[in-house]
């Protein structure tokens, strides 16, 4: 009871951080969000003269918008699925097996993020040109797959490593074979963290722009690529703003899920926390 009466000092550092973060992250989001629901907003008015859904109707009436949404969802699902198929067994091997070159191979997944990405993409585009993969769906899948490797290897490796080996041994002790142990014990224990990795991979792929633009354009147009062309080619801000708001949807879903995972502590466990 006495403890509750003790006044805690005001956390000024935390407040300053919160204010700065709000200004840097939330303020631009509010501006874009406002633009998406604005029919008329002329300088020097601080707030729009007319709110409305006019540009939503116009944007969603376009076939290329629906085409790009479908393309982005298909790409993100395909890339994430393939990435899980390739990376999860690899992550389990990294976590549990000792093989020659393991450490170097493990750290090599950082390489894709250690150099300027665009230079790497241009180099890959050169190779893809010879392989006739430029402007193809699978070309974009391949380039985006590279971008997911870090998340889909490193996080699941940490997740598998954090599963108590004694739990697996206890399962074998009561009669489970190695595959059953993986399915019934290891995977559920590592599950929330792996789900977070899959989600990060999906969201990252959904937003990926440079690879999709360099390898896929103009035949393969994802939502972010379309948004860039809207912003570059359309004098009307609202088109880009509407697409931006549409792009927020996966982020919000990811945030909601991430909150559950982070609260359960499994995300931190995944990183060895």
């Amino acid at each position, binding site marked *: 009871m006495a403890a509750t009466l003790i006044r805690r000092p005001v956390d000024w550092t935390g407040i300053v951080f919160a204010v700065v973060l709000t200004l840097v992250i939330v303020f631009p989001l509010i501006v874009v969000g406002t633009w998406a629901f604005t029919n008329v907003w002329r300088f020097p008015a601080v707030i729009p003269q007319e709110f409305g859904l006019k540009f939503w109707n116009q944007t969603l009436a376009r076939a290329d918008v629906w085409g790009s949404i479908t393309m982005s969802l298909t790409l993100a699902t395909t890339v994430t699925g393939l990435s899980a198929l390739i990376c999860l067994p690899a992550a389990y091997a990294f976590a549990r097996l000792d093989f020659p070159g393991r450490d170097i191979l493990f750290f090599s997944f950082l390489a894709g993020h250690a150099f300027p990405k665009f230079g790497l993409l241009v180099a890959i585009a050169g190779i893809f040109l010879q392989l006739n993969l430029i402007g193809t769906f699978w070309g974009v899948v391949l380039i985006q797959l590279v971008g997911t490797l870090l998340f889909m290897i490193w996080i699941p490796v940490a997740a598998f490593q954090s599963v*108590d080996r*004694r*739990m697996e*041994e*206890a*399962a*074998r*002790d*009561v*009669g*489970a*074979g190695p595959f*059953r142990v993986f399915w*019934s*014990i290891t995977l*559920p*224990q590592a*599950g929330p963290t792996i789900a977070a990795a899959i989600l990060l991979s999906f969201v990252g792929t959904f937003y990926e722009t440079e690879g999709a633009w360099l390898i896929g354009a103009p035949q393969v147009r994802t939502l972010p690529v379309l948004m860039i062309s809207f912003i570059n080619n359309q004098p009307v801000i609202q088109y880009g703003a509407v697409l931006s708001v549409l792009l927020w949807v996966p982020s919000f879903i990811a945030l909601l899920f991430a909150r559950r995972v982070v609260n359960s502590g499994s995300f931190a466990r995944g990183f060895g926390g």
Partner: protein
Amino acid sequence: MSVLKIKDVSKIFASGQVRAVDNFSLEVADGELVCLLGPSGSGKSTLLRMVGGFERPTSGVMTIDGEDITHVPPEKRPTGMVFQSHALWTHMNVFKNLAFGLKLRKVAPDEIKRRVDAVLDLVGLNGYGTRHVAKLSGGQQQRVALARSLVLEPKILLLDEPFASLDQHLRERLREEVRDIQQRLKITTLFVTHGQDEALSMADRIVVMRDGRTEQIDRPEVIYREPQTPFVAGFIGTMNLIEGNVANGMFSKAGYSTPLPVSDGPAILAIRPEALDLAVTGEGSQGKVHRVTDYGTHGLVDLELNDATRIKAMVPHPDLFKAGQTVTLTPKAIAAYRDGVVIHRA
């Protein structure tokens, strides 16, 4: 009838440097509880893990009821292991933890429920089936871990320091319960511990291990009263081990001497604190009181011999002694060791 036989088993880890278990042999009789006791690194857990199938012996043979299990994988062994960390599956409730092994054996759902309920009743957790294991106390978790092994009715129960993570009070209560259950079920049990209290209070026989080898296998009272090596003497209970010399039937060390009818030469004298009488006055060997600790029921007097060798004596009336006093020491029971073996006991 479940008999475990371990014959000349060794375990050398991959590096080739560490011989964790060295030519170890043991036979555990039907319904017997044998404790593997030893300090950290003595090889007791490695040995238990080999019986459970989690480590493969480098050499030797292990059988259960005559059937060779040396290279049988853990899931196919008739053993049940209780782990130090409980190792409960935290994504399952208590019932699912216990039912998992039965489902793998394709036991009918009705029978699973009957057996899980029965074993929960046995470990005193009736009605806990739907509880989440993470929400249980340490003692309850340990009971669930025990129940998970027992529900499969293993031929051999393996306990790997099951009480190590529990507080002293709970540990004492649980070891009585586990011993009671083990005796009721008459299940052959191999129990690893580094707690001598646990071993002395629970075991039918104790195997004292050191550096992967057997130092002594005996009943608890024999291990305590008649340790065969200085290591066992020093490891079990509190023992004063005084290194000195024997000449003309007298052991002497830094002003302290006592008759010891063995041949001349170096010897280690072993005296339990409760076997050492102290008197403030009188004739005899001299020691100096360093500290007196009153435990209520008895006292412990720390003494210094002339060369600062420390020994302990248990006294019924600690208030009779004060730091700085010189006292006479009269041993009531002694053992003497030379070259690692006992040479005299009186």
